[in-house]
């Protein structure tokens, strides 16, 4: 089906004259009272207008910036022609989760960063277009299951139904392998379900993308904790030819400062899991409660911190602070999330670090002592190291704190899989060319390998793993390594 295309062809000069098309969004004053998605998405007209800005470079840079190798110029060309469903199919050839990636990828760090238009005219809105075509395909009921090759008779177990695991499952199913996903939580999706809030990624979309995989023959077992119920070795004994481990983020990091176990202090994992997976924002209709006071401080500057602080506003916080030890420039969160948080009235306290919590007689946090920081010399991450300014301590009254300073690894699989090498942080060591671990046939990817990272990096690792798993189970030798095998990414 082709959307009616009344547009005339444009030359290059005309194309660059078109401004970047913005997605209409919910009014900040309204949206902090609900959990509905913030952007409404592009309309077909806006999408076609935006797509027409693409210069169709003979040597497109955008593709090199995409961890999952989406054929960006081709899908954008189809959008200019109004062929939205066809465009979605092009994306789905390499990315099974377009409606998700269109929403949560840091495009400004990837495809849009290297777009030839970026510097002078603003990048083509690749992410918004990806999201648009995926939504169009879904809402028009045009999702079709691709033709699958005949079964190879090989079986692969995927541990964890997050972005890494879902990508592995999709790619292997497309190659004719039987895939069974084992998910510890009661719903598949991993961080897409428990972590990322509804207002940024509606859960119905995750559900739909998982159902797409199920229609491709992928089996999903929920509430199945590998390592406790069956171990990796037992999965092999049951006839699986390879196992992929994508168990994601593990235990939350805390800052190890005084008073951290006072009531009212959450890890971001817990805070978001209560609100998202358990839908505690709908208490008491839902049984899981969540406490949000009037003054909420969220520690950290990443996407998880933005998700937490924006959730707290929607749950009634009067003052919602981001407390971050570096400055605005160093914040690792997506630009769009920071922008949305600012619009919604989040108060940013940069160059500030908590030193201890002060509790009341019942064990509830009532204040946080902070110290001001300044930026010193660059550290190993290349960012300027924050240094405390002596004597700059001050007290911030807070009744809720969300600690969003990263995760360490989940110990369940390394503990119960003999011969599986993990580094000192508990992250599984893999060969980056194949994502294969020290155990032949055991592959891993996503946060369990890299420590806390992004959805798309996990999906990218899933793609590399799927390719290697295919070779492994089919007895095809791996390619010569492109990258020198190094230990899993440093923290």
């Amino acid at each position: 089906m082709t959307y009616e295309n009344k547009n005339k062809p444009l030359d290059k000069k005309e194309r660059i004259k078109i401004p970047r098309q913005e997605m209409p969004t919910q009014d900040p004053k309204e949206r902090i009272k609900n959990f509905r998605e913030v952007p409404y998405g592009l309309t077909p007209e806006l999408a076609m207008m935006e797509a027409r800005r693409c210069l169709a470079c003979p040597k497109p840079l955008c593709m090199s910036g995409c961890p999952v190798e989406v054929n960006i110029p081709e899908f954008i060309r189809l959008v200019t022609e109004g062929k939205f469903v066809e465009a979605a199919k092009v994306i789905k050839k390499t990315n099974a989760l377009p409606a998700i990636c269109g929403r949560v990828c840091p495009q400004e760090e990837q495809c849009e960063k290297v777009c030839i238009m970026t510097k002078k005219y603003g990048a083509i809105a690749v992410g918004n277009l990806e999201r648009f075509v995926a939504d169009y395909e879904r809402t028009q009921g045009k999702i079709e299951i691709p033709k699958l090759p005949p079964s190879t008779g090989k079986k692969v177990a995927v541990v964890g139904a997050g972005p890494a695991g879902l990508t592995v499952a999709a790619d292997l199913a497309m190659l004719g392998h039987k895939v069974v996903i084992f998910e510890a939580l009661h719903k598949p999706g991993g961080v897409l379900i428990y972590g990322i809030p509804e207002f940024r990624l509606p859960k119905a979309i995750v559900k739909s993308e998982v159902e797409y995989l199920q229609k491709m023959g992928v089996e999903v077992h929920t509430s199945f904790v590998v390592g406790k119920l069956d171990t990796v070795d037992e999965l092999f004994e049951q006839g699986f030819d390879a196992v992929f481990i994508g168990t994601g983020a593990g235990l939350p990091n805390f800052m190890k400062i005084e008073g951290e176990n006072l009531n009212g202090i959450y890890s971001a994992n817990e805070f978001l899991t209560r609100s998202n997976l358990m839908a505690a924002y709908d208490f008491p209709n839902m049984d899981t409660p969540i406490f949000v006071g009037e003054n909420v401080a969220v520690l950290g500057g990443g996407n998880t911190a933005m998700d937490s602080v924006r959730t707290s506003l929607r749950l009634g916080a009067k003052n919602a602070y981001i407390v971050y030890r570096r400055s605005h420039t160093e914040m690792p969160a997506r630009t769009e999330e920071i922008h949305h948080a600012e619009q919604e009235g989040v108060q940013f306290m940069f160059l500030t670090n908590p030193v201890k919590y002060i509790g009341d007689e019942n064990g509830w946090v009532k204040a946080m002592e902070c110290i001001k920081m300044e930026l010193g010399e660059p550290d190993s991450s290349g960012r300027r190291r924050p240094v405390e300014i002596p004597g700059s301590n001050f007290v911030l009254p807070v009744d809720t704190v969300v600690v969003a300073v990263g995760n360490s690894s989940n110990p369940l699989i390394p503990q119960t899989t003999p011969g599986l090498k993990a580094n000192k942080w508990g992250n599984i060591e893999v060969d980056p060319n194949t994502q294969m671990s020290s155990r032949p046939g055991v592959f891993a990817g996503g946060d369990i390998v890299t420590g806390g990272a992004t959805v798309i990096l996990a999906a990218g690792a899933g793609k590399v793993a799927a390719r290697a798993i295919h070779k492994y189970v089919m007895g095809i030798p791996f390619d010569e390594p492109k990258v020198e095998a190094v230990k899993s990414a440093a923290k």
Partner: protein
Amino acid sequence: MFRILDKRELCEKVQQFRIEAPHIVQKAKAGQFVILRKDDSGERVPMSIGGLDKKNGILTVVIQEVGKTSGAINRMEIGDQLADVVGPLGIPTRVEKFGHCICIGGGVGVPPIYPIAQALRAAGNQVTTIIGARSKNLLIFEDELASTSDRLLISTDDGSYGTHGFVTTILQKLINDGEEIDMVISIGPVPMMKAVVNTTRAPKIKTYVSLNPIMVDGTGMCGACRVTVGGKTRFACVDGPDFDGHEVDFDEMTKRMKMYTRYEKVAYERFLEGECRLAKKAEELH
């Protein structure tokens, strides 16, 4: 999937369920726990394992009604199914030949002592079990524990049965009598566990406690279940549930367990009101 095969009231507000969960039962060991979810709107609640019927794949849990979730589960009937039973979670209780072990259970902490006493005895230990309740009619699992212990001692707060006093009254007497005790494990309300470790601290008896703090995922992700042990933050779901009792900060744990009291009250009242309305409606219909 997780069908209730049998249900029995052990005492007021305490129900014993036998649940079909063959895979979990096959893997579970004494001291581990499961997470239950009643239905799609339900919360994830950690529950101790009160028995493992390995032959038939049946899991026993004993639930005391203290709020909405426990109340709603306790009203489920034989043949009903739980949305989820996740497990076995946590590290099993350390079972080896210690010599003379004392297993102490209080309240609904009594049932999980049963598989532990069984395992310790099977490992060649001499097992003394002490169980306590406020009153004789609230005492549960007496027969089960009598059958798996070399000696079963009972206390009631009101003196209606066994020794008048607490489980620690009995424990203190055993210590005073000069009994050789190589290990103590205790499961029950926090004040009871705290009293037990205070009793064994001076004579330096190795004492394990099985903690049941608030959890959400229970698989090492959310960090809700953090407890301070030996001055360090530990996670009961993956580092526990058993910890060296002499190292646990029980006062902090007590406060943390009250984090949602206000919400629990709202949910429970609403639940009971709903039940009242239903009962009235049923009456009107008749």
